[in-house]
């Protein structure tokens, strides 16, 4: 049997619609196979890969890119995904 890990997933704004069932307040504990990447996660959630977005992994922001897509997830990682935003 494939081993799995659990991460904390947070989706914001227009992306909230991709939250898995059982999510509350935009957050969910999410199970995924060990060794999965950001790209795997996006695919699993049905979030279009090619659209710009900001992915904050354990409090560090990354822009959607091949490099970001290849990052491997670890147990208890906190992944927060935002559509492109700015202002200030």
């Amino acid at each position: 049997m494939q081993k799995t890990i659990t991460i904390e997933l947070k989706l914001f704004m227009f992306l909230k619609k991709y939250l898995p069932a059982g999510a509350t307040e935009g957050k969910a504990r999410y199970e995924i196979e060990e060794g999965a990447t950001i790209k795997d996660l996006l695919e699993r959630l049905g979030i279009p890969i090619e659209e710009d977005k900001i992915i904050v992994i354990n409090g560090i922001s990354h822009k959607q890119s091949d490099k970001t897509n290849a990052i491997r997830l670890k147990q208890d990682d906190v992944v927060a995904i935002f559509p492109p935003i700015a202002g200030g």
Partner: protein
Amino acid sequence: MERSTERIIRVNLTQKTIMVESIDSTLMKQFIGGRGLGTKILYDEVDPKVDPLSPDNKLIFMAGPLTGSGAPCGSRYMVITKSPLTSAIACSNSGGHFPAELRSAGYLGIIVEGKAPTPVYLLIDDDTVHLRDATLLWKKTTHQTEDALRADIADAALARDVRIASIGPAGENLSRIACVINDKHRAAGRSGVGAVMGSKNLKAIAVRGTKKIAKHNNDTFTAAVRAATERLKAGPVTSQGLPKFGTAILVNIINECGILPTRNFQQSVFAGASKISGETLAETYLVRNKACYACPIACGRLTKVTSPETFKGEGEGPEYETVELLGAGCGIDDLAAITKANYLCNEFGLDTISAAGTVATAMELYEKGYLPYKDIGMDLRFGNAEALLSMIYDMAYRRGLGAVAADGGYVLAQTYGHPELFMGVKRQELPAYDPRGAQGMGLTYATSNRGACHVRGYLIANEILGVHEKLDPLTTQGKASAVKAIQELTAVFDASGLCLFASLAPGMGYDVVRDMLNGLTGFGYTSEDLRCCGERIWNIERLFNLKAGFTAADDTLPKRLLEEPLTQGGPKGMVCMLDKMLPEYYSLRGWDTQGVPSKEKLAELGLL
């Protein structure tokens, strides 16, 4: 329509004279307008050592050539003067409709000199300009002032059509954190420009304009405007994020990234962040979004709080900086209270960033036992929303603790013996990003010519938000050149009269601005010419500050940010490594190790 030279109004309040002057087009070309031209005029005409609140200081309102032209986001003007808060150059930006109206009346700007013996307001109706008695407007809030000013005008159509900029009680009472408010809700916020207006007994400026702005080449201008508008409509930030959620949308991401200033920068993650976010604002108090003149983005928020009774009100905002600093910065997670505090600041004419920073300083002084209860008569603990509102009243009217706090966080912290608790640069309160987790932003704060500021080089766009090129927020590498580049581009937007938010769409850089400026002015700029203008503007501001007495020692950050590592979030353990960036920055700028521009650099920029 034939394009003639741009004109400005010069008002001397002491002598009660009003003159209209035309601006030399070589000067226009070199400094563009707005922030550039206004600074050049201040530099040439005012001794940088002048007492900011004396009649010898001048107050310059300056729009850019693109303001009111129909260029998308061409809605801005600048208020330029010597700051009573920082003693450096002040240059505060605002949009709305007042600036475009001034342009339609046929003027790029207004220079205000001297001091009126009694309160006055300036009424501009195309070519008719005069000073009028403002005794009846004095002591009124900015909202009451607009209404009373309209009532004071006999001609009903004029009364209806004028656009108004005014000060509230804070400006009248010479609060060093007072702003100028136009169109009731838009603030030329920072550095105490409202106090300078108050010191001149100038309560308001009302303007109606009915003329069209002449273009050098209508066809090329229109084509350039269309191209720019398309970019804004295609950009996800400018077409979706900002219109739907406003700037407060940043609360959650800045919190996730562990750089959300909390309780006077003691923490950087706030448990109540989601309660004060743009999404929550959209679900609760948002009535609809609202745009400045000719803006396809419409990031403004028309809001209304109906309960509880104490927080009732309506107006615009709060914006990100405001909601963050009045909220997390003061440990408050009650969005109704924050929204009310924002309304009060706008009505009293207080800068929300500085007001919030001052309250946060007071709260830390109080919690540490340095500010005795008997001096304030209230429980100033972080999180106390009633105390926040009460301090805003006190600062606007200089009552109680407000007698000192009206002069900002630096004076407050200094008065109570703990200047290290003031979170600001050059005596101006910090905006809402902790630079320990966004190193380049720290360099922006330290080198900003008007003191701590986020819109003098918004590197958060790159370090955190990944707009344009994404940079690693935690390293110092490459930050000096990135900061220099963004400072110059920003100066060009500010000088042209464009809202900086337009630069958040892909491809909205020098080329697009160049095409619009060339279509309008016929100056034939290249993109590199424009970058040079940006560099020229940056350097002349620097020269003003050096002559005012500033040195490299002032290009720094509060000790907390340089020495106390963050204890939470992704950037845990980080301080801002300013010393790793500043020398490189000086050298890239062509400045010596003391931050003084070299002769060669000044010659290259035509500033010798």
